[in-house]
């Protein structure tokens, strides 16, 4: 038992000593950041970038581009040039850092409908989430979620039309107000590519576009050639 523990410790020490630091990664990341105002990145530019980009527009303000910092099992962290961080879990905003107040935590009592494959998301699905914001009075902030519609539609990016599945979800906040979140999934890949969502009754509504995913999709179509 003691031998096993010592071996485990040695292995952990080895991994620790060999790991690269986040600092060196951030240096690489800085190259990928773009100014946070009315950003429009060309298709060619997107294809050249090694770090994926996300468009973010709070309310009706200018659109910013955020770069991907990390992505693991449905969770993706995006950073803006002015060091704001948006964390998405299955495409839903799960953390906001650099916004006041900060969104620190979200947890669903039943699985988030967005964690399901798009084919399994259907109208009538309900769930409840609990959020903790940085202000104590906004701890245990409970939101009711209900998928109210799912329909085919199209979106246009880079002058190309994409078949989409639009999922509409009504969220009801503790103050009694509600909002319709909208999520657009690519009909072919099933990936979430665009959304409009409002995390709480007091926060902005955010438009999010996973523009690098779209550029990748165009690349796939171009590579595959024209359909017969």
């Amino acid at each position, binding site marked *: 038992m003691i031998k096993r523990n010592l071996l485990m*410790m040695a292995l952990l*020490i080895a991994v620790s000593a060999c790991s690269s630091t986040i600092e060196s990664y951030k240096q690489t990341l800085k190259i990928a950041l773009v100014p946070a105002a009315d950003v429009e990145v060309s298709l060619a530019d997107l294809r050249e970038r090694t770090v994926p980009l996300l468009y973010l527009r709070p309310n009706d303000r200018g659109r910013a581009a955020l770069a991907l910092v990390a992505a693991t099992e449905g969770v993706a*962290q995006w950073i803006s040039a002015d060091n704001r961080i948006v964390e998405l879990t299955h495409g839903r905003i799960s953390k906001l850092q650099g916004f006041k107040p900060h969104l620190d935590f979200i947890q669903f009592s039943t699985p988030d409908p967005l964690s399901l494959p798009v084919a399994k998301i259907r109208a009538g699905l309900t769930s409840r989430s609990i959020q903790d914001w940085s202000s104590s009075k906004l701890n245990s902030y409970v939101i009711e979620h209900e998928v109210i519609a799912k329909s085919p539609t199209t979106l246009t990016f880079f002058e190309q039309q994409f078949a989409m599945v639009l999922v509409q979800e009504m969220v009801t906040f503790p103050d009694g107000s509600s909002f319709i979140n909208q999520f657009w999934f690519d009909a072919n890949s099933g990936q979430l590519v665009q959304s409009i969502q409002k995390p709480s009754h007091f926060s902005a509504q955010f438009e999010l576009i996973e523009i690098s995913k779209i550029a990748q999709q165009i690349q796939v179509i171009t590579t595959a050639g024209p359909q017969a």
Partner: protein
Amino acid sequence: MSKWIVLTLTVFCLKLAAQQPVSEIPVLVQYQQQWQGYFERPRIQTVLAQQVKLTNVHWPSARLYSLEPEALADLEQTRSQVLEQLRLLIIAAAKEPQLAMQLQETRQQIARWQLAKPVALELNPNLALVRQQHNPKLSKGQYLLVAGKRVSTVSVFGLGGERFFMHEQQRPAYAYVQQATELYSDTVWLFSAQKPAREIPVAAWNRTETAIATGTLLFVPLTDALVEQDFPELNQQIKTLLVHRVPS
């Protein structure tokens, strides 16, 4: 190709680890019963990224503790003094069985607490990523990292031990104290992860409507009638222990 590089580096590091006695490793961090050693003082972001693989960690309640033997020895001495004072109070309360039982429960719970010295640092991987002041290098030493699931309760500790109540949005501290019906005090001590302890008013004449965070612990001091004459330092010593209590 990259697999070979990783393998070579791992073998090299294993050799290094084998040559380095554990006592000479500058920084050791314990997380969920496992130790991880660092040859160079790591930044906190590196520690968090390597130790915590779970995606649903409730970072507002996460904490880092120092396990330095000197600090622990002082704490254990304080605990011994608290336990002895409570023992004497139990003997003095022999004619009041209910009070004696409540004191006994308080004493038993304090005896079970794990104690360590909290490091004054807000643990937030996202902040650590973007702000250098939230990503300091750890000093040499041994640490305990506590980071886990969200606690959905508020607890009230006082005579009779700890009671737990579901946290509700915007519910003020005094409402939880009222719920622990047999406890009364003009003020209580509020302990919240990553923030200094503070005294807040909770009596009908002085209370405020300030909401508290989930996972908060409220300490209702033992009454003056019980401790003021013989053990005037007891409440302050229990407060010291609560500052250093590692959540179980």
